[in-house]
């Protein structure tokens, strides 16, 4: 395998440069908003001529933005709490069922993650409208759960494929009904995958904007929805401040979960 590494000095410099370039390409668009957010100017300008924390103040002082942040965090938490258990049960069924039936169910279940978000949002709008649920938090939650279930399944299915199912049979023979076998035997051993699935489901909801734009009303706007709307109406560095905070929150959550998995 060692031969696979370039041994010339030049080759190594080229390799490192290429890696750095790819990393920069991935990171820069995210990082460029950080200095913007500390700008003292009323405009989004790069590089900023003077620095201040005024846009963070604006954000935290705004009732609208705070409400949207709260809505987003509540939605993300609820989405994860609903989508992960449902995804786990669905994954267990697919694993146990096997064969053609499992493939079919998996196909149907994963559809929301494959079809364009806008189609899903339009469809959801009509379904929810018929139930008079457009504009409610519940309506957005349904949309986010639909999107998060396939995400949870994608994380959980491979973990279940490696699971020793004799353990469940053993638990059953020892007196455990299905819920107790799942809670006492499967869940504790799938902790890491369940944590990943929870994180992914939470981030799916946090990041989602299309469904929110279609379904959420003014009072329960999510943060991404409000960001889109404010970009259209007025461009000021508040957006950059929110984006920076957003990035920090996500990085911290991902780091905490990743570090917990390592230990």
């Amino acid at each position: 395998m060692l031969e696979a590494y370039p041994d010339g000095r030049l080759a190594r410099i080229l390799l490192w440069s290429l890696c750095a370039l790819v990393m920069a390409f991935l990171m820069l668009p995210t990082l460029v908003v950080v200095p913007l957010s500390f700008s003292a100017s009323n405009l989004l300008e790069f590089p900023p001529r003077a620095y201040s924390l005024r846009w963070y103040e604006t954000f935290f002082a705004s009732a609208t933005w705070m409400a949207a942040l709260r809505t987003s965090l509540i939605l993300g938490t609820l989405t994860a709490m609903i989508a992960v258990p449902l995804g786990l049960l669905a994954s267990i069924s697919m694993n146990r069922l096997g064969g053609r039936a499992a493939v079919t169910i998996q196909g149907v279940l994963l559809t929301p993650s494959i079809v364009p978000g806008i189609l899903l949002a339009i469809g959801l709008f009509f379904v929810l409208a018929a139930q008079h649920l457009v504009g409610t938090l519940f309506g957005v939650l349904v949309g986010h759960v639909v999107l998060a279930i396939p995400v949870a399944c994608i994380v959980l299915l491979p973990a279940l494929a490696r699971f020793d199912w004799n353990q469940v049979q053993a638990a059953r023979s020892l007196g455990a009904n299905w819920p107790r076998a799942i809670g006492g035997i499967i869940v504790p051993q799938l902790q890491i995958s369940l944590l990943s699935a929870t994180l992914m489901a939470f981030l799916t909801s946090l990041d989602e904007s299309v469904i929110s734009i279609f379904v959420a009303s003014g009072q329960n706007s999510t943060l991404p929805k409000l960001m889109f709307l404010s970009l259209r109406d007025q461009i000021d560095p508040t957006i950059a401040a929110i984006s920076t905070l957003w990035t920090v929150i996500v990085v911290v959550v991902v780091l905490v979960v990743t570090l917990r998995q390592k230990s």
Partner: protein
Amino acid sequence: MMKSLPITIDSVRKTYGSYVALDDVSVDIKAGEFLTLLGPSGSGKTTLLMALAGFVRPDSGKLLLGDRDITRLAPNRRDIGIVFQNYALFPHMNVLANVEYPLALRRIPKAEARQRALDTLARVKLDGLSERGIAALSGGQRQRVALARAIVFEPRVMLMDEPLSALDKNLRETMQYEIRRLHDDLGITTIYVTHDQREALIMSDRIAVMNSGRIQQIDTPQRIYDRPSTRFVAEFMGEANIVAPGSVRRIDGADASREALMIRAESFHLDAKLVGRDGVALEGTLRAKAFRGENWLLTLALEGGQEILVCIPAALASGCAELASGQRVTAYAPAAKVHAIPGAAA
């Protein structure tokens, strides 16, 4: 000693598509009996065990535990202890927690559960290992934890699915005696699945030999070995020679049987004096010989080409070393060891 229950398996049938896994199987197992289901893989023995455990639902037929119909009862409500082939211990719990698990499910108070688990661990000679993690145990120790976990809640029936197949030979022999001793101490009705005929002979009160979803014969180990009722049982249970009546001659000249005869390799002698007047003689040409330590194995070709195996204990085989390939050899067997297989033509 806990009260054990008899089991009735009444014409149980299970098919997977066109494949018949269990073909109207009926067995009555006495309370406290040690019954072994013996057969090659695919014979239906594990399917039958899993039907008793509740993980396979029969297409038709009945399963009774005592006089209670358990055919459609959920596995967790059957109160049957099961030892799985791969032990299926819970790796996220230590030894003690594994053994306490069935007691916790039955809401037995913590202190009592702990005491019972510790007592059971002592019974399977695992005292002192209760705080160990499962990953830190050897194969034999895991086997013992699995046993302890299966008996700690005092089930009235125990099912074992090839529990010793993963152990090395010496350990396997030790565990065979220990499992049997545990069964005798507890008096628990036990159904044991194996494909190892020696294991079945050593451990069982009765053996049910299975093939293609049917029970071929069910009887004591001795009768299964000496008096097999079918050709399959005869051949599965050891080095069996099945010969046409024509190739066998009675020493006293009387008529031999009309049915195929089974003579086990170790039933032969090379000295006619060791066999009574009513014994039989088979004449053939020596094809091969092998010294196996405790005995010699000779391969004789009878007239007509059929080869038979003749096993002579080393103590009685003074002449074997000098036998040469191609030499005419006559093998004798006492009448008691010649068994006519009913209905089987050679």
